[in-house]
């Protein structure tokens, strides 16, 4: 388990110079010429091209699907032919129909859009070269993070530009429903997956056979978002394992020699959906994906969104990653075509690998000055930001301080070197004028869409408006959270436990990781290495002294430690509030909806009364994470009653967890499901 993302090779070790702006050439030459360029990618050896009809047939005729079809027919009492037709239906709904002419069409349209929206799209050429090499050797899985709808096709766009086979992409089914656009996506290589598949066995079977067949045939790379969905908070999401299992199975069962995973980090200066996201988190439903919606949203395209970085990580060999973790002989005794529940070692390894990929995505992302600024703005009381304003030079100073810290912690910044720092920060501010604006040397939060808008109708609405702006800041802060989170956990452990003993600190550190592993990505089974890493980083920036047994604050360490503690505070406070609510006020059994509503009311009041100084608790994301965390820690169980899924909470346990969190009680080891750990 000594394997870390560092041993494996961190994405984005490259210097800034290695990044090339692909739009530069596009601005100089004809878009049509580009769309019609000769495209002759080298295919992975021995795998002939495979039309979507052939793929279809291979999936339909697979032993596996025939078996499941028969079983489902038996279970449901319908005839096999009917089930087969259903399979065909699912496959029809799902399958991609990759065609070069549509790639060209996309390339043409996207060039137009990208040129207006982005000032630059930077890609690391070295990563692309490695990828190109990898596509010729083994089936390749492209694993980008997911922050914007743009992610969806930008990879294909880059592949097309660099003569690399364009991928087949896993997409959510709502996109397929869009008129024309759905079809264009399908022909650009997207295949569509239903949300909430649940226990639909037939659907699972078709999907997994489809994915496995794509991997086995190796005619095109497969692209999927291991986080499962677009992160509304711009923070990494705990990976979903279903797709990962499907993708890896052909290797585990020996059907391919190896599989190459390519983590890709996409970072935006400014996300197109920013305001939509904040509102969604506050409970305003996301507009349904529709072509009309897309056209309406085209006003979004009038604005400047700065630059975008696409960092292709070093290709990773699944064979190497699995070495010593999985005994492949376990597939020797049953036909490989039959459905088989993954064994504990496979589950643990797949989970580990998925987390590892997300961590590498995080490491490879480029952090903008704006994200650092957001960290600091959120540590300023909201009233200051909405009323008297924050001194600009103070913010500048702090941002530059934070930049040094981030660099110390090994972050990769997107900070132009040639331009004076003050200009960098000013242009950053200008880019994000929808969130903050500067007046008379002071910085204010843009409130309710208009700077210093009219007075709110009600205090509650006022809270919501501030929250909308604050949550936008939160999102951008989240872009850099992964850099600080491990030292921040240690800093928090130091302040909460008031102990200097390593063992005490480690215990609390592990406790925090257990509680917050829905908020931040921690690779399972790596707590003590994470702890070491946190200590190492704090020592590196001279914030602590570390000896065999002790971790103590250094004289100059307070600034760093208090910044880090403040960074985590919103999470701790939000969790505290909800824990308290759950063990004091809530019914024992409730639905998710009831919970969200109650917490929102409670939190609004707490903010109004000044009891709570964070708006983050209003984010439905944090609220849902608490529910997941409780379930994971076995403090809550999901029960199915009539139509609704309800939660049943173990109040005593939640109370205990709250006490540990606030430092009243020393932590006892909470353990998540053992399967998730190695």
């Amino acid at each position, binding site marked *: 388990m000594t394997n870390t993302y560092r041993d494996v090779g961190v994405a984005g070790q490259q210097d800034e110079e290695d990044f090339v702006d692909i739009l530069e050439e596009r601005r100089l030459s004809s878009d049509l010429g580009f769309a019609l360029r000769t495209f002759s990618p080298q295919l992975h050896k021995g795998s002939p091209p495979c039309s979507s009809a052939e793929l279809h047939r291979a999936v339909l005729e697979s032993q596996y699907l025939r078996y499941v079809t028969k079983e489902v027919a038996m279970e449901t009492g319908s005839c096999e032919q009917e089930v087969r037709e259903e399979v065909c239906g699912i496959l029809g709904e799902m399958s991609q129909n990759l065609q070069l002419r549509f790639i060209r069409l996309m390339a043409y349209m996207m060039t137009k859009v990208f040129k207006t929206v982005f000032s630059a799209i930077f890609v690391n050429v070295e990563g692309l070269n490695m990828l190109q090499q990898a596509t010729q050797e083994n089936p390749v899985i492209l694993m980008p993070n997911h922050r914007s709808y743009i992610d969806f096709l930008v990879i294909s766009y880059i592949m097309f530009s660099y003569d690399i086979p364009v991928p087949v992409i896993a997409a959510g089914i709502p996109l397929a429903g869009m008129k024309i656009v759905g079809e264009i996506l399908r022909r650009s290589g997207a295949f569509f997956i239903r949300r909430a598949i649940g226990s639909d066995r037939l659907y699972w079977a078709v999907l997994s056979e489809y994915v496995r067949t794509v991997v086995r045939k190796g005619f095109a790379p497969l692209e999927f978002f291991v986080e499962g969905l677009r992160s509304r908070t711009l923070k990494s999401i705990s990976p979903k394992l279903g797709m990962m299992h499907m993708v890896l199975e052909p290797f585990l069962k*020996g*059907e391919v*020699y*190896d599989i190459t995973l390519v983590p890709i980090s996409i970072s935006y200066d400014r996300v197109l959906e920013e305001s939509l996201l904040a509102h969604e988190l506050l409970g305003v439903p996301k507009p349904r994906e529709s072509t009309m919606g897309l056209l309406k949203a085209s006003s979004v395209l009038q604005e400047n969104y700065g630059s975008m970085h696409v960092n292709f990580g070093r290709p990773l060999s699944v064979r190497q990653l699995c070495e010593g973790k999985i*005994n*492949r*002989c376990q597939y020797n005794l049953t*036909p*490989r*075509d039959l459905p088989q529940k993954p064994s504990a070692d496979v589950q643990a390894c797949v989970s580990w690998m998925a987390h590892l990929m997300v961590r590498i995505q995080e490491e490879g992302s480029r952090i903008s000055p704006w994200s650092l600024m957001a960290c600091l703005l959120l540590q300023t009381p909201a009233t200051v930001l909405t009323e008297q304003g924050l001194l600009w030079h103070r913010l500048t100073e702090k941002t530059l301080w934070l930049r040094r810290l981030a660099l110390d912690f090994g972050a990769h910044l997107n900070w132009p070197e040639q331009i004076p720092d003050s200009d960098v920060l000013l242009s950053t501010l200008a880019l994000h004028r929808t969130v903050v604006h500067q007046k008379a040397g002071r910085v204010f939060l843009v409130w309710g869409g208009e700077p210093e808008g009219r007075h709110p109708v009600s205090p509650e609405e006022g809270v919501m408006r501030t929250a909308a702006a604050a949550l936008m800041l939160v999102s951008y802060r989240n872009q850099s959270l992964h850099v600080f989170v491990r030292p921040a956990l240690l800093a928090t452990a130091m302040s909460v436990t008031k102990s200097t003993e390593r063992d005490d600190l480690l215990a609390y550190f592990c406790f925090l990781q257990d509680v917050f592993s829905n908020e931040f990505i921690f690779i399972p089974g790596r707590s003590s290495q994470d702890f070491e890493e946190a200590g190492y980083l704090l020592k590196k920036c001279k914030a602590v002294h570390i000896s065999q047994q002790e971790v103590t604050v250094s004289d100059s360490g307070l600034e760093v430690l208090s910044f880090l503690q403040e960074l985590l505070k919103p999470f701790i406070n939000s969790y505290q509030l909800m824990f308290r609510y759950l063990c004091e006020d809530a019914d024992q059994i409730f639905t998710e909806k009831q919970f969200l509503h109650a917490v929102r009311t409670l939190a609004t009041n707490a903010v109004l009364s000044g009891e709570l100084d964070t708006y983050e608790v209003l984010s439905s994301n944090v609220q849902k994470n608490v529910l997941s965390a409780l379930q994971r820690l076995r403090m809550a169980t999901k029960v199915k009653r009539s139509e609704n899924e309800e939660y049943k909470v173990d109040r005593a346990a939640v109370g205990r967890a709250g006490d540990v969190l606030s430092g009243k009680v020393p932590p006892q080891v909470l353990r998540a499901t053992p399967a998730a750990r190695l």
Partner: protein
Amino acid sequence: MIFSNKRSRQILRHAKPAGGSSSPNCHHLFSWYMIFNLTELLLFHRQEIMKWNGWGYNDSKFIYNKNGQAEFTGKRYRLSGMIIPGLRDWMESTFGATVQHKTPATPVLNTSAVQPPTLNEAFVEGIKSTGIPFSHDPEDRVFRSHGHCLHEIFPLREGKVGRVPDMVVWPKCHNDVVKTVELACKHNVCLIPFGGGTSVSSALECPPEETRSIVSLDTSQMNRVLWIDEKNLTAHVEAGIIGQDLERLLNESGYCTGHEPDSMEFSSLGGWVATRASGMKKNIYGNIEDLVVHIKMVTPRGVIEKSCQGPRMSTGPDVHHFILGSEGTLGVVTEVTMKIRPVPEYQKYGSVVFPNFEQGVACLREVARQRCAPASIRLMDNEQFQFGHALKPQVSSIFTSFLDGLKKFYITKFKGFDPSRLCVATLLFEGDREKVLQHEKQVYDIAAKFGGLAAGEDNGQRGYMLTFVIAYLRDLGMDYFVIGESFETSVPWDRVLDICRNVKARIVQECKDRGVQFQPLSTCRVTQTYDAGACVYFYFAFNYRGLSDPLHVYAQVEHAAREEILANGGSLSHHHGVGKLRKEWMRETVSDVGLGMLKSVKDYVDPNNIFGNRNLL
């Protein structure tokens, strides 16, 4: 009495070829008619005609002649005396092995490098009193100290000799063996049975930790066919007989066993039984376990044998199966009753070219499904196909070379086969003429369904010839910095393609990771078909120039390849056996209980570990 070297040399000198010229219809690829019967001439000192540090006969080897062309010397094989124009280029392009970089073997054994024997005087006295021939001559001992694994041969070429048996005994019959084993038990010496010496599992290696006197029990003098039962079609044979002699002797009476493992020129009946050998024509005749009717084995507990020759019995677990595959750990097989068949009236080779290996495997699978496999059917991958091509002897006439050109044109241009992907299946049909032709048609029809094109008898026959000469080729490789070996497995049908691809790729990758400077040869073929799977043979060789410890690298790669085989659902061995080379995987192969069963049999039969070669367990 100690058999003298001098005497055997005299015998050899007077030996004359027994037969005249090769008969054109001779269907065997090496010649029975040749000079001597290995065992008949009391070949105590086999090193007189066989290499002590390489494969096969002294007179047969690949060399580069004065003109720098490859040539196969001697007169024993069809290829003997022929120039092989393509071989040198193939060696250079495949391995980067050039004539300039030579690593010749030590020509003569330096007997002072051999440790003096640790003799158990009481045992020696006992043997003397029985009159069983014995020797502690260094050459005799070294010759019986090894099989043909790379790590056994390579040091010998450099003149390095490890632990060797302290003494060799040559019992002449079952009773001699009984006496020898009794004496060994009485005086606590370690016995290692030695048959043909063709083991490739480190089975003959003397355990370095063995402190007792080690006695090699050479079975070569027990080489008679004791009787032939024409009513039941069985023959009772002494277990030391060498494959080619057995076949020749039975042929004289119009019979054969049909058991033809690739090593049959040198391997012995007892060795086949002890390793669960498999013959090329098992589709007609069966593997060794199907062929034996009765076995007699001498163990420290006494003699084990069945009381009758019933063709099948339900009498608890078959005790023959304790013997089959026991690898010399339980005792010495002395006599075997085997099924025999009349020599087939007609034999025909054939070959089929497939556009790629996948199609070829699909065809073999279909042939197995329809249970119409010919006596032998083997599928070579593209690398072996090219290798086979490189071994084509010089064509004598312009006409033949013109024909070859035409064939090539037809296959690659007209049929659109990619020369870097196509592969060949070789076939051997046997039986009465009409049935053979009928059978042939059936198989070719199936092949056609998988895009296979009939490619002539010649190609087929050459394919089988390669089986016998490929072992000689390793010696040529070793003269020029190339080391390699083959290993095998058996695997279910649905895994065949995957295992071939993965193991070959693993070998290439491991070589790269371990600093091998040249691209290795990593190739395979499917050599046997069964109802539920196939036997796959891998060949692996590389140029070791620039490596400080080539043997270690080789061992690591082979180890990794075996791990890969097991991870892909392949067996630990199809017919080579486990020996000491693969015993680390025995537990996971047969489970704890399985291993315990084998151990308890060993403990009962041989509590003092007299048969102490430490194979298997």
